[in-house]
């Protein structure tokens, strides 16, 4: 299958390893990955912060870039939820019915990375080895917008050497929320403190999720507190093989 990778703006800039891992997993499974250099951002930050008029050109750009793509894979559930929950409404809000039609045609071809593996490809064992104690944080959009359910967990359970440790209240928000973490920094930090405590309680070496946004937030506190817990996007775990340096 020819898979077009939408890396997302913050993965592109901050988490290139996640993108490399997605490529590695998909190619290992025999698929062809393409990267459209024209891509930028899904528009989520602007939309969620209330800059609705500013978000529309960004999503229009996304639609232009991917209009003829066969399948689009995105290693971020919050960006996919932006597309599924808001794109159509955004297009309609500016009265652009052509854009709305394009969005409707495009949406069925967009998948979150783990959703693509399990739902579209029917694969749970991607041949990964990752000999570490890992806990999984259920990001809000993966749970309540994409309804991924146990999809990421099923993938992690097939990873050789991985010991999965259960997180308490896994689906409670980590407090990131995009610009919420800045506009309401105190409340966001208090939410993060609760989340970090549950992560530390598991005794895991690595906390993973399907969204680097939550992980960046968690890392911020885990690092500030000088803990030894690392964060890693689920793609990085699924890309790891026995030959990798742990």
């Amino acid at each position, binding site marked *: 299958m020819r898979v077009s990778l939408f890396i997302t703006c913050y993965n592109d800039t901050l988490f290139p390893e996640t993108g490399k891992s997605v490529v590695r997993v998909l190619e290992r499974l025999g698929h062809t990955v393409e990267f459209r250099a024209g891509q930028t951002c899904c528009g989520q930050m602007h939309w969620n912060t209330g800059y609705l008029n500013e*978000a529309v050109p960004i999503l229009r750009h996304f639609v232009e870039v991917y209009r003829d793509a066969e399948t689009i894979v995105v290693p971020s559930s919050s960006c996919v939820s932006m597309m599924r929950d*808001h794109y159509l409404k955004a297009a309609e809000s500016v009265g652009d019915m052509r854009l709305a039609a394009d969005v409707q045609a495009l949406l069925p071809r967009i998948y979150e990375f783990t959703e693509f593996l399990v739902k579209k490809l029917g694969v749970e064992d991607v041949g990964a080895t990752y000999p570490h104690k890992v806990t999984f944080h259920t990001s*809000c959009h993966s749970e309540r917008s994409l309804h991924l359910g146990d999809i990421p967990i099923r993938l992690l359970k097939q990873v050789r050497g991985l010991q999965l440790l259960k997180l308490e209240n896994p689906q*409670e928000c980590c407090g990131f929320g995009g610009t*919420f973490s800045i506009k309401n920094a105190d409340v966001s930090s208090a939410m993060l403190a*609760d989340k970090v405590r549950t992560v530390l309680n598991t005794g895991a070496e690595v906390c993973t999720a399907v969204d680097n946004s939550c992980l960046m937030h968690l890392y911020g506190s885990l690092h500030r507190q000088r803990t030894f817990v690392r964060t890693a996007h689920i793609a990085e775990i699924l890309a790891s093989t026995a030959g990798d340096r742990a």
Partner: protein
Amino acid sequence: MTTQEQAHWSDRDFPEAAKELLQDSQIRSNVRHATNVIQAKRNNVVGELSDWQQLRDAGAAIRAHSLAHLHFYLAQFEEACTRAGGQVHWARDSAEANRIILGLIQKHDAKEVIKIKTMTSEEIGLNQNLEANGIHPIETDLAELIIQLGHDKPSHFVVPALHKNRQEVREIFKREMNLPDLGERPEDLASAARTYLREKYLRVKVAVSGANFLIAENGAVCIVESEGNGRMCLTLPDVLISLVGIEKVLPKYRDMEVFLQTLPRSATGERMNPYNSIWTGVHEGDGPKEFHVVLLDNRRSPILGDAESRQTLQCIRCAACLNVCPVYHQTGGHAYESVYAGPIGAILTPQLHSMTEGRSLPYASSLCGACYEVCPVKINIPEVLIHLRGKIVEEDQKTFSGKFGMWNMGMQAAAFLFASSSRLSLAQHLGQIGQKLVVSQNGVIERLPSMLSGWTQTRDLMPLPDQTFRDWWAQRKPSADHGIVKEESDVE
């Protein structure tokens, strides 16, 4: 008779009020405990219904239908209620509602009124207005009594004293009821409240209530409650005045089938409320001799006119969204500086003030979506939050300080970069160089300037890696043997 001076809401914005409440470990621990208990009960009784999602759909459909035809159902209610012997009054705003209620009480020369928990009366500041006119309101709901005696304000519209624990309640009762030997068992406190209130029920001749539902087809009014204080107030006094928001009307009696299942389960985690009172007009020799309904608009009509946020008025005030909200868990209700706290308060409050107050509230959410998931009438609160943020941004952009403020400038700059991958790429490269100014010796960013400083007060930030993904890709496959590197297809 001593007056019960109530605490007032301040005009602090959410981040400021929240910051203060986050320092109060007692309130935080009380809120956490109470919301955890209610949530566990709620999840238990919701989980036992196999048709819960269908009930949510039905509830949403009934409420949306009622709002779409509100003028019709309100007129039908007025007609039916009047026919049954009730008197219906229409109040455009709080001032008018206060005037009507005060007039009715004064007509009967009453100096005291007993009250059933009504958040709508908190919305219009009824107690303060009555006190100012020499009439003493007595709250009979246990939690509202605690609030009133404690000179406090409600922090939750189902469990108003949720932020108080038992020891604190005991101290208030000891002091205000003059009971130095009061025990601290729940039954000691309940017994003290019962003794205090019984005497009032038997003496006071006028009661003020809110309502959970109005039923258009027969003019009935419904209140569900847990303590029986409501039943006392609805049946013992000579005069009953019910203050009700216009959005609370349902078309038919049988619509209650849905809400009497979803409301108690969502609100208190009970299969049904201990007391469900539904009454119609007045009846010779039974209940109040005079019954008034005051229908309150108070800026609800403009909300109806906004197709995006009209769903706000579907709310049946179960407060499930408060109990599940991770923001509310941290701060409790007082941070919202409004009668209506939590996620629903964050969308309702600013709209009830035509977006002139409570403007920080739509931002008091991480948009985690937990509120929408539990809402028994499927109000898409995150969607409305974003809609209201959009209104605020658009208004701010019309002002000089808004247009040239840090947020707008930053967002405009970001939008400019995201319009083109070459601009984004250039910005990434500039960021990789420029960040040397902020990266600490240990390789992370520990301090950011200006509006971004909120991030680094508790969190480190990893620096930008040396190579972006797009640069890695361009370098990895110059011949594009595995994929097509598309030409720039930028929309300039």
